[in-house]
Each structure stands twice: as C-alpha cells, then as structure tokens.
C-alpha cells in the first residue's frame, strides 16, 4: 500500500491563555492528521478547544494572552512555526483558508462582496484589479450567486448567501486545506442543506482537504471521512465514521450520542451527560472527563489516560482500555 500523504500533521499541540482569572489551558496535547483530499470532523462542545485548534493552524492565536506552549504543525512537509510572519501571510488564504461560523460578522460591511473576494485574489496572485474582479464574479457564479451582484454590499444578502460569499472567498485561491468552523450553525436547516451540498461539491472538484469543526454529529455523518472527538483540550477518541458511530468507545462520545433525540424512536429517553464542562482554568487531575463519567474509578482521578490503539484507525483515551487499570465500562465494550 502506498504511503499515506497528509495535508496537515499536528503533533502534541498545547495552547494556553493567561487571563486575569488564571491560566486557561485551552489545548493540552492534541494530535491531528488529515489525509490529502479527506475531511476530518472535529467534534466537541463549547470550550473544548476546537476553534483554538483551528486558529493555531493559521497561527492566529492572539499573543498575548494566548501562547502556543508546545507542539508542531506540519503543513505540506514544513513546520509552520518556522515561518516568518510575512511567509505566514502568504499561506493564509492561499494554502489554508478558513470559513467562520457567523456569516453576519465575518464580512466587511462597507466593501462590496466582489471587491472583498477580489482582494484575496490580488493578495495572492499576480493579476490586476480588473482581472481579479472578473475572477471574483466567476467564483460567485460557482457558489450560486449571479455575478452581477458583485457590486452589492453584505447587508443586501441573506444569511445563506453571505455564507456562500464567504465560501467563495475561502476557495478562490484553491487552498490545500479548508478549515470550516461551524459553517452552518447560524443557518436554517434547508439553507444548511444547500450550503453543505455546495461545500461538498466544491471540495470534490478541487480536491481540497477539510477540517470540519462542528458540534452536530448529524453533519459529521454526512460530510466527514474521519472524526476526532475533543473534550477539555484533548482528543478523547479518534476514528473513521464507522469507528465512532458503530464502535463508540469513549464514555464521553457515548454520552454525546445519548444526548441526541432519536428521530426514529421518539419514545426513547434521553440520557444526558451529568454535570458540566470543567472550568478550563482549573482542569481536574487525571482524566478530564472523570467528574462526569458514570464509569469513573479512583484511578481515573489521578492518572491521565494515554492514547490506546483499538485498531489501525481507531484510538481512544480512556483508562478502561489500558491494561491493569481495573476500570471497566460495564462489560458492554472491549
């Protein structure tokens, strides 16, 4: 079998923010890899560190208060922490681009959408203003907006159309990696369906790799190839779609599925995860999930679980899968 080619390879990334209330340990040793042309879903709840991971890839962590304390991010075989700020600027929008969650606030309200897209082209490609605007119009057509609307301002577009403009802007320089941070959360379901469909088509057309950040496991099932489940700044489970959906192993992942109403069996009781997300300035010792875990044992409160390989594709960070810890998940797993 041929060697797998990775678009991005993150190893042992750690990020902290020093705030007035203490040090926020946003990311604590994250490993992530995305194979070329594939989509990785990064799933977790508010404060899990999903967006911080994404911003680290673009080196957009505001410093201060943020600081990347360890790790490497290898993009196209080069560690991005070795780039100068100038080189980094050439990468953002060209090699890696990002779609933000809120289409209402991520466009410039006093610039026409055509000019905003053309700006990206002119920054990265050797074209004149006229040529850039032409290309911007083509790109608008590609995302289903008539090119003659290029002279309009963001407020003249609806939420779904603004998100299309942002997608056009993100893809116009044909990036190798597209980071989509909750791209459809602010949209209605029928519009969400349109936007996801569009992203999927464009991704296939250009062979772009994608990091899809979401809290919606339904979207993951539809667009992703692999999934990483994140909790309190750590990846607690990683695997292919089949691994995560059909061979769910981590108690947190199990809890996430239990919290979702089943649309086919409406009588089924919801089984919520008890408790709350831990305070990131004061993370619990041992496994960060232990205060909410129904299988928690004494050892979980002090020992940090390592990544256990369940198969070539499936890893989990839970002491129940480590030898000799005595932790058991009630016999339904392993």
């Amino acid at each position, binding site marked *: 079998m041929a060697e797998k080619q990775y678009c991005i390879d993150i190893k042992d990334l750690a990020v902290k923010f020093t705030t007035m209330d203490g040090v926020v340990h946003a990311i604590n040793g994250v490993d992530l890899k995305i194979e070329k042309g594939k989509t990785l879903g990064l799933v977790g*709840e*508010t404060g899990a560190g999903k967006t911080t991971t994404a911003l680290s890839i673009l080196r957009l962590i505001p410093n201060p208060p943020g600081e990347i304390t360890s790790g490497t991010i290898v993009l196209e075989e080069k560690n991005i922490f070795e780039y100068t700020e100038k080189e980094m600027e050439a990468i953002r929008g060209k090699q890696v681009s990002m779609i933000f969650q809120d289409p209402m606030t991520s466009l410039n309200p006093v610039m026409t959408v055509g000019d905003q897209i053309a700006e990206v082209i002119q920054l990265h490609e050797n074209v004149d203003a006229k040529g850039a605007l032409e290309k911007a119009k083509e790109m608008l057509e590609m995302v289903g907006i008539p090119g003659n609307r290029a002279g309009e301002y963001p407020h003249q577009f*609806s*939420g*779904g*159309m603004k998100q299309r403009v942002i997608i056009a802007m993100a893809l116009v320089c044909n990036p190798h990696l597209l980071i989509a941070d909750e791209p459809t959360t602010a949209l*209605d*379901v*029928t*519009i*969400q*369906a*349109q936007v*996801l*469909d569009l992203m999927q088509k464009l991704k296939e057309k250009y062979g772009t790799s994608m990091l899809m950040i979401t*809290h*919606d*496991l*339904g*979207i*993951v*099932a*539809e667009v992703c190839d692999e999934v990483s489940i994140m909790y309190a700044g750590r990846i607690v489970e990683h695997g292919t*779609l*089949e691994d995560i*959906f*059909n061979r769910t192993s981590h108690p947190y992942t199990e*809890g*996430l*599925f*239990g*919290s*979702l*109403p*089943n*649309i086919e069996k*409406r009588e089924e*009781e*919801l*089984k*919520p*995860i*008890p408790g*709350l*997300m831990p305070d990131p300035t004061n993370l619990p010792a041992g496994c960060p999930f232990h205060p909410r875990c129904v299988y928690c044992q004494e050892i979980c409160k002090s020992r940090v679980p390592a990544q256990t390989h369940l198969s070539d594709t499936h890893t989990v960070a839970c002491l129940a899968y480590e030898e000799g810890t005595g932790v058991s998940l009630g016999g339904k797993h392993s």
Partner: protein
Amino acid sequence: MSDVLLEVKNLTKYFETPAGTLHAVDGLTFRLERGKTLGVVGESGCGKSTTGRAILRLHEPTSGEVIFEGRDITGISQKEMTRLRTEMQMIFQDPFASLNPRKTVSEIIAEPLRLHKMFKNKKEQEKRVLELMELVGLSERLVNTYPHELDGGRRQRIGIARALAMKPKFIVCDEPVSALDVSIQAQILNLLKNLQKEFGLTYMFITHDLSVVNYFSDEIVVMYLGKVVEHASSEDLFAHPIHPYTKALLSAIPIPSLGARKERILLKGEITSPINPKPGCRFAPRCEYAQPCCFEQSPELKEQEPNHFVSCHFSDKF
C-alpha cells in the same frame, strides 16, 4: 372527551414597517389539550416566536381569538391579563439576555412572587424560592450568585424556575434549548418533560430543531411565512409528511447515524419577504410542484386525513 385548555382561532399579527405591512402570523388556528405539548416548527422569520408572544399578548394580536379555559382573552383588560399571566408563562430562548444581570438568582425567581404578592412574609417567599430551585436542579448555594457567574444551562434553569413560580397551567417555551450544548440540552429537555408529568403542564414548544420537536411534542404545527402549512400528530407528521415544504424540511435534517442517508430534497432559493406578501401560496416560489394556480390563490388548511391538516392545492396528489 377532550379537555381543551387553549384554542386559537384565526390569530393574526401584522406589523407596520416603513416598507409595508409585515404579515408575521396570518390566520393561525389550533386547539391544545390540557397536559399535551404542541410543537411549532419553522425557519427564521416564519412567525413562530410571534405566535407564542401573541398568545400571551406580549404582542397585541391584530385580529383573531385566543380562548384560554373557555374565555377569549384578546379583549380583556390589562389588569385582568396581568392576573391571567400567573397561569400562562414563557421560557425564553436566550438565557443570557432574559435575566436581569443586576439581580441575584433568588431575586429573579422571587420577582413574580413579589409582583403578584403571593406571600405575606419574606420567610415563606424564601422557602418557595428554595423549593423552586430544588425543583429545577439548582443547588441552594447559588441563591446569591448573579447570572453572569453561571453557565447557559444553569441560567436556563433559572428561567424555568421563574416561569414555574406562579404554578402556571400553560407555558410557551420559545427555543429553550437552542443556545445550549447537546449534553446540557438533553438535561434541560428531560427536566421540562419531568415537570410536565409532575404538574400536568401544557406546553407550546417553539423550535427550529426538528429532532427535538419530535422528541418533545404530541402534535406539531409546521409554519412557513406566517401560515400553517401542515398540522398533525408527531408520529404522523414524521412518518407521512404531505406538504412539499414539510418533506423538504424533514429531509434536510442531518441524521447522526450511518447508513441512514436518505434522498435529500434541496429547496431552491430562500424564504421570501413577509412584507406585503403576494397572493397565492407563500411557498410557491420555492416549490418544485408549483402550478399557475398556486401563485394566484392561497390554499386553505384542510383535513387531508383524520387529524392531519395540510395547506396545499395539490395535497391529495402527494
């Protein structure tokens, strides 16, 4: 015999805007039995929140009747309405914006008790507040905290405790879980369900999340641009949707399991403006089956199958 708590007849709410008349809710009719939950679903701007507010007269309805326990409440005086609000309450979407930031948890929950002069002395009032906090799962040590110190889930519990304070019969829940993370969302949904069982509450549950509404409701009303397009029991609606909009809406839900991928109906275009709407079916510009008559005449809501109401000229063909 059915025990109807709330009946809404031809409820209409228009807003005058500089651009024309905005038809937020246009001729809504339904009945809600005691102890049941009516889900109202639809996308942004379909008039679902306005409906909830018009029923409680937080927006004065333009026309129509709201019959609560056999009495039309649209004409009654503000004073009487204030008294009636002890029986009809609301839980708001945004637990960040709907709580007074300068009041403590116990003050917020005590507010309705104070306003309606429920208790003669402070001791009894405090006892009731603690009782309510326990009921919604807020620990006693939080009595003197302020909303900004708490997370979204706990804030929503405060909103629920406040709504329950006057022992209402009917609660409008306007997107009560959409601002919350899934694990917290499930906690709040279970809480609302248990409270309903315990106190025989009747809910109107407004949401855009179809899997939540299916889990929660006995009956569902689907709205599009101020009109009801379909109204049926939850089982029926999810098993046999009839209206083309409902079908598209249901097919657009991303299902969190593998192998469940189904044919998705992609709607063309986007929701049109509710300001001075054109005659005809409001969904017609996006409907793949639209015929010339759909653009001319507005379809009536008719009983297509027993207790399954649809508003479409061609409902018998689907």
